[in-house]
């Protein structure tokens, strides 16, 4: 039928235009990076089985972790507040309570041994730069260093919440929240912004945030962006591959490889969706209903047309 032929022509030209303007143009503009499924293949596999009890002694003692890191579940408070920490180290060192579940074990081990290498920021700490990564590397406590590191990792894993208890928000806060704010979730780099009764208290808090951000900007070269709308501006695939290895998509970026496990990366992305695409479930639900209705609408419009046009032909 002639009309269907015309429809086919219109459809083909529309789809060709769509293909050229969207998938094709984007493939030219953006490098496609395949996910490595958070395998961290460049890091050596763990060969030793760790002992959490010995690990605890190392973390609190010879490893000197608790000199800079708080471990709130083990009752170790932070030595300094977040702002002072950032002014000393560039960024507030993370609380170690949940790092055992958020970060990959292999990554944690490599990080303890050589932070700049594991984080993939060696380009910032070349010998010529004269700078050293603020986290001191662990040179060993006298025994087998690999065994000692395995012990520490085992300890960190033993104190962390179980994977199924890790909420998207916790994953985000541990992995991203010390550098990235998230305005739409009321999150600042120094924690959630409380509701203040007095303007003065609020301003005091804001100044703390600014001081922290200033220190962070000095450390990173630029203030890491607010992530409120990243789920819409970057999309899931980009975020996931970027978190896995920032250097792949943005060579030379100051953002370190974060080293999260695949499961934690999913949690982080879920949290980003909870901030920037809160109505996604409602959209799908309403979408289905509207589609059903519109098909019925089209069907009835066809029946009406047919009943009218049978007199005209």
């Amino acid at each position: 039928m002639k009309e269907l032929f015309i429809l086919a022509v219109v459809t083909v030209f529309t789809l060709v235009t769509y293909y050229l303007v969207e998938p094709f143009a984007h493939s030219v503009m953006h490098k496609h990076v395949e996910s490595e499924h958070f395998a961290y293949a460049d890091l050596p596999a763990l060969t030793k089985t760790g002992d959490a009890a010995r690990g605890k002694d190392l973390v609190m003692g010879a490893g000197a972790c608790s000199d800079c890191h708080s471990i709130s579940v083990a009752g170790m408070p932070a030595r300094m507040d977040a702002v002072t920490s950032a002014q000393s180290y560039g960024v507030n060192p993370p609380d170690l309570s949940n790092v055992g579940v958020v970060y990959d074990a292999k990554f944690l081990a490599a990080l303890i041994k050589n932070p700049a290498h594991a984080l993939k920021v060696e380009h910032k700490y070349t010998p010529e730069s004269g700078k050293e990564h603020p986290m001191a590397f662990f040179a060993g406590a006298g025994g087998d260093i690999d065994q000692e590191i395995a012990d520490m990792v085992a300890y960190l894993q033993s104190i962390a919440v179980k994977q199924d208890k890790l909420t998207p928000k916790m994953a985000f806060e541990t992995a991203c929240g010390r550098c990235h704010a998230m305005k739409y979730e009321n999150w600042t780099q120094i924690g959630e912004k409380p509701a203040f009764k007095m303007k003065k208290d609020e301003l005091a808090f804001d100044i703390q945030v600014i001081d922290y951000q200033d220190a962070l900007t000095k450390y990173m070269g630029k203030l890491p962006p607010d992530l409120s709308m990243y789920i819409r501006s970057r999309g899931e695939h980009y975020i996931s591959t970027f978190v896995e290895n920032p250097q792949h998509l943005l060579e030379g970026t100051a953002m370190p490889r974060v080293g999260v496990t695949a499961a934690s990366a999913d949690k982080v992305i879920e949290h980003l969706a909870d901030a920037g695409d809160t109505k996604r479930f409602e959209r799908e639900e309403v979408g289905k209903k509207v589609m059903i209705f519109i098909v019925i609408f089209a069907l009835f419009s066809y029946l009406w047309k047919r009943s009218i046009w049978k007199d005209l032909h």
Partner: protein
Amino acid sequence: MKNGRRGFMGKAFGAVAGVGAVASLYAMKKSWDPLPSVRSAGFTTLDMSAYKENELVVEKWRGKPIFVLKKTAEMIAKQNEADKARDVLVNGEHYMVCIGLCTHLGCIPGYDPKGESFLCACHGGMYDFTGMVTKAPPPRGLDIPPFKIDGNKLVLGEEGPEYKKMKETGITL
């Protein structure tokens, strides 16, 4: 017969389209509703242990000033039955909790702690420390906002049994 059928399909299509129009009206109605942030800001929680005797504190609830006055022992002793009915009792302490707008024309009266009374600067209306009118033109005492007692906290915006009783007995509007 033919005409009937044609009319029928037209009406059926119109009805389907009408269902769609009504459904979209629902979405439109919902879009006019107060936002969740506005709604949640409609409840203010006051920590009643923080107030000092005979010192008026002006809180804010739904954009209106709320007077909170903790009564002294002498004040309580002075009160008659009608005054007592207006008391908000939290943890054994007596408070005056009122919307700080003159019931005459809505100005905000000022408190004089010495005279233990309120004076409205606009038209000279006066209230005592219980919020009762002592000098015209205000037609009635200061209104009491909906409240619920929760331990030593007071939640404004929710209607607790004490408030409901006040409303039933006509102590407040």
